[in-house]
């Protein structure tokens, strides 16, 4: 064997050795070496939090921040890793969560209340059962409707008095959007036209600024952090919010307490009470959309010990001053937090829509889509 070959062989052997040492990173298996030991359940383990959104969005950013605090408050300080599984409008991520092995309690998932509502309508590609999800904590977040000064909408009265068509822009006419379209349609606007297909909150804002849209919506959080300056410049006017549902009633968004909710606006402009099938559905969907904007779930198959530890830690996280401060800075508003049972009650309000109500939403989407 020539010296050169010997060097190469040595190199190869060395490489192989390092490889066996480092090779544990190349499979998806969690190393659970620290099992069975005495001490806290999560000691030395790694928890995966599945976030069904792209990296970088508000939900992802918020989840990453929450993961840090969860790790801090869980006994044993396990690492909490966020795994982004975007796709299929959250379905991909939640399917993966449902498929995961829950016997070790190492998987959590995040998802919006909207997806729970929309699984009632659109079952295509849904391989998870929301009844098996146990909510650890749910964070709320409202929606704000704002008008375009350029298009001559300066107040609620301008909307109802307008004889010109009123254009309202949104991203996609899904279950959550359909109740806003319904509520606006009920206001008594002479010629109301929903326009869907914008590719993000920013595009809607730009269209409202130019007067292409008379009204747009955005999350209250986006409104407070991004749109508010335009309000101060007099280019847009906030009109109403979707509100939160407390004890079955729609109440004002605490972040924007001066704005009426959509049912309030309806009652004011028409003099009628917001009753009937459509408004019942509005309240149920609003529960899903705003009260339960961001849910953090553990699977019901997870060991009880794990659930208890997680619930305990989450209760401490939402009390943490620093966490609330950071969340407020990120979202522009302090998120409403609902723990375990309270959140489960909100979830039940959504899951309990009757088949007739589900059919009503489906019909409404079809009808509004071809208008």
């Amino acid at each position, binding site marked *: 064997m020539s010296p050169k070959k010997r060097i190469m062989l040595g190199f190869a052997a060395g490489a192989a050795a390092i490889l066996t040492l480092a090779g544990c990173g190349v499979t998806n298996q969690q190393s659970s070496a620290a099992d069975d030991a005495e001490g806290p359940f999560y000691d030395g383990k790694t928890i995966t939090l599945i976030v069904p959104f*792209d*990296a*970088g*969005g*508000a939900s*992802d*950013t918020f989840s*990453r*921040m929450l993961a*840090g605090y969860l790790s801090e408050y869980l006994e044993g300080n396990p690492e909490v890793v*966020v795994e*982004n*599984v975007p*796709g*299929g*409008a959250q*379905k*991909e991520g939640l399917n993966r969560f449902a498929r995961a092995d829950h016997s070790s309690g190492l998987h959590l998932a995040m998802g919006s209340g909207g997806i729970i509502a929309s699984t009632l309508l*659109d079952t*295509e*590609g849904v*391989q998870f059962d929301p009844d098996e999800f146990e909510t650890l904590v749910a964070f709320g977040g409202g929606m704000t409707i704002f008008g375009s000064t350029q298009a001559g909408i300066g107040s609620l009265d301008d909307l109802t008095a307008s004889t010109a068509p009123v*254009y309202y*822009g949104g*991203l*996609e*006419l*899904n279950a959550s959007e359909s109740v806003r379209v319904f509520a606006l349609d009920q206001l008594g606007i002479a010629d109301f*036209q929903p*326009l*869907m*297909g*914008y*590719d*993000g*909150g*920013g*595009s809607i*804002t*730009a*269209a409202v*600024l*130019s007067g*292409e*849209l008379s009204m747009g919506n955005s999350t209250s959080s*986006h409104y407070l*952090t*991004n*749109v*508010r*300056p*335009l309000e101060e*410049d007099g280019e847009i006017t906030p009109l109403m919010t979707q509100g939160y549902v407390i004890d079955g009633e729609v109440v004002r968004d605490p972040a924007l307490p001066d704005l009426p909710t959509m049912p309030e606006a309806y009652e004011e402009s028409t003099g009628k009470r917001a009753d009937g099938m459509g408004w019942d559905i509005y309240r149920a969907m609003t529960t899903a959309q705003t009260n339960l904007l961001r849910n953090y779930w553990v699977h019901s198959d997870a060991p009880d010990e794990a659930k208890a530890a997680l619930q305990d830690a989450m209760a401490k996280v939402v009390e943490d001053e620093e966490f609330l401060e950071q969340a407020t*800075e*990120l979202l522009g508003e302090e998120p409403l937090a609902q723990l375990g049972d309270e959140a489960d009650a909100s979830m039940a309000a959504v899951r309990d829509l009757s088949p007739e109500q589900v059919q009503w939403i489906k019909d409404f*989407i079809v009808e509004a*889509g071809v208008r």
Partner: protein
Amino acid sequence: MWEPAFEALGTILSPEHLLWLLVGVGIGLVLGLIPGLGGITGMAVLLPLIVGMDPASGIGMLIGLNAATTIGDTFPSVLMGVPGTAASQATVVDGYPMARKGLANVALGAAFTSNMIGGIIGAIALFLLIPLARPIIVGMGSPQLFMLTLLGLSLVVVISRGAMAPALISACLGMLLATIGSASMTGEYRFVGGIAYLLDGIDLAILAIGLFAIPSILSLLVQGQAVAHELPLSKGGVLRGAREVFRHKRVVVGNSLLGTALGIVPGIGGSVIDWIAYGATKSAVRKDRDQFGKGDIRGVIAPEAANNAKDGGVLVPTLMFGIPGSATAAILLGGMATMGVATGPTLLRPENISLVFVFIWTLALANAIGAIASGALARPLSRLSLLKPHSYGPMLIVVMLLAAYQSGVQWGDIVLVVVIALLSWGMQAIKWPRPPLIIGFVLGTGAENYLWISVGRYDWSWLTQPWTIVVGVLVIITLAAGLTNSTGRIAQSVKAVTRRMTRGAKTPEKEKVNDA
């Protein structure tokens, strides 16, 4: 205006900021070098790291990474004919033939110089566009955006040579592929045929890897021969390439401005901007136009200048309106939120303006550092073109399958990329041009959404809006010029008009630039 600019310069020249910038640039170069992996992978990895970081340093790292990916991606594009990222596909058309002639280092030198100039011009344009940002974004309504996507699509006929029918088939196929999945307006599923994987549609990254990267590697492996058999200009070739750029000042400056302007338009993105730059340059030059596609250095300069300049343009809607102009810009926005930096109109307030300058300086600096580092690597790495493909091809296939898997993290990704790769290899064999497919795919989605909104909002009256007509006339001229294949004069006037218009609409203060 000047005081915050110098304050920002002071911030970014601090050692800590420079260190993070270098980290970003380093990772970006590596990611660009590896075909299939791009800025998105890197941004997603760095995102958790910036929690609690000083905003200027975080911006330095993310922007540095982003700029460097579009520099590093030139290596595989030129040396192996494999686009390093989707943003350097057009570079392959002339860059790879240059490598086959043994001029890899010249092509690389020209590319990096164009990258640097383009990036710096993009940064300057970002600076100049700050006061104009709002009128531009607000002025671009859905009808205008629709017409711009049509203009982009019409370039298919300019780029294509020879028979037009296969190019049209290819573009239509691309648009049809883009409609697979849930429709963005109604959420209704189209052409999914009950396959759960398709509900989400086809991912651009998978299409780009399957369409160009894998077939190119497979072809190299079949040939079994090194790309070039000698490097006649092994010494000084890189510098020679750099000098070539200065001989084609108009090409590099014109395309930098074009790239910036296109970056502002939401929904176009790097994977098409390089083609538009390539097509526009090809139709605008008078001399030796038939050299394009055979190793013309202008075909390398144009897309490389444009794809780095676009980063400046993309930041305009991203920073001023929170409208992410690209997928990486969306992650950047998330990063800003993590660091507690408000984006949107507040960024233009006097107290925040120095942060905007941090972006501008960082962009310019990152492009300069990235290009110089790549230039230094160009000479040793260009020797890769002398290696037999067996020594790197199989490894690249492994890497590219892994890269495809990252887009959806499911087995369907691998199945799809394998199917696309084999079909695309077949398309290449029967001389069906593939660039129109990717252009149709990217612009098809935008065209549909913007048309939908335009009709819903204005019925058909948007057709009579002045800007619609102006762009419409441009589309018709482009089509006529491409189809009649007239040698230059019509295309020349299109180019001149476009130039005047983009200058008039977006950068009035730019000096007059004409193409040769």
